[in-house]
């Protein structure tokens, strides 16, 4: 229960970019997630209900969708932005939790690593439909 003294107080703007980019990525995700959910869960709903299509999501359906450049762009930006937004949000929560906040720099590096590795893994999975 001790506050940092004035001399220890950082005299520079810190934490602006994580805060700002959380808002930018969140704003973009509204549209990207909207399109994603609509395309995967609702655009083919009528066909499934009428029995023209067995399921909403199957390998061949995803493959056809990802044959279009637009959806390749949407899916890869979605993967990157959602990972940034999600892990940045986790960082926000952890910064308010003493034990993690004491190692803020290491925690941030760890989350970046997790994000990059997950992006590579996710991209590798997506490429199964494209290549």
């Amino acid at each position, binding site marked *: 229960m001790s506050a940092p003294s004035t001399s220890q107080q950082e005299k520079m703007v810190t934490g602006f970019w994580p805060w700002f980019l959380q*808002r930018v990525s*969140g*704003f973009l*995700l*509204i549209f990207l*997630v*909207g399109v994603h*959910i609509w395309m995967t*869960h*609702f655009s083919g*709903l009528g066909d*499934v*209900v009428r029995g023209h299509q*067995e*399921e*909403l*999501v*199957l*390998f*061949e359906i*995803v493959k056809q969708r990802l044959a279009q450049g637009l959806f390749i762009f949407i899916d890869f930006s979605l*993967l990157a932005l*959602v*990972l940034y937004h*999600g*892990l940045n*949000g*986790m960082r926000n*929560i952890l910064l*308010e*939790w003493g034990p993690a906040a004491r190692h803020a720099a290491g925690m941030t590096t760890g989350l970046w690593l997790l994000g990059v590795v*997950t992006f590579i*893994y*996710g991209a*590798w*999975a*997506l490429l*199964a*439909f494209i290549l």
Partner: protein
Amino acid sequence: MAFSFRYLSLHPGNFQDRYSGTRSGWWAWFLQRLTGVALVGYLFLHIAVISTARAGADTFDAVLIFLQKPFFVVLDLFLIAAVLYHALNGVRVLLFDAGIAIRQQALMFWICMLLTAAITGVAGYFSLPLIFRE
């Protein structure tokens, strides 16, 4: 119990004592965190499921057919509700950051709740054939 609430970044202290009564700003934040954490968890599961495509189209289809059984369609509705709330409350916070509607924060919270319920309801209605199919 106290520790788990604290870990979710909730207020320490007596939960019931403090959060009886309408504190819409607090509930808005709490639900934003709760849905945020849940969605991060879902994100990793989602990537894991999609990566089964690497094991071949047949494996992917087998997994996906299983995950489109009625039980999972119902779970999907919870997912849609979480995404909707998180996005709508995100817009609410963006407006505050732009200096808009700060005085009407409680009203804005209830609009978020109402829209979440309404749109989830519509999505649920259209998903009924998937929930009650053979």
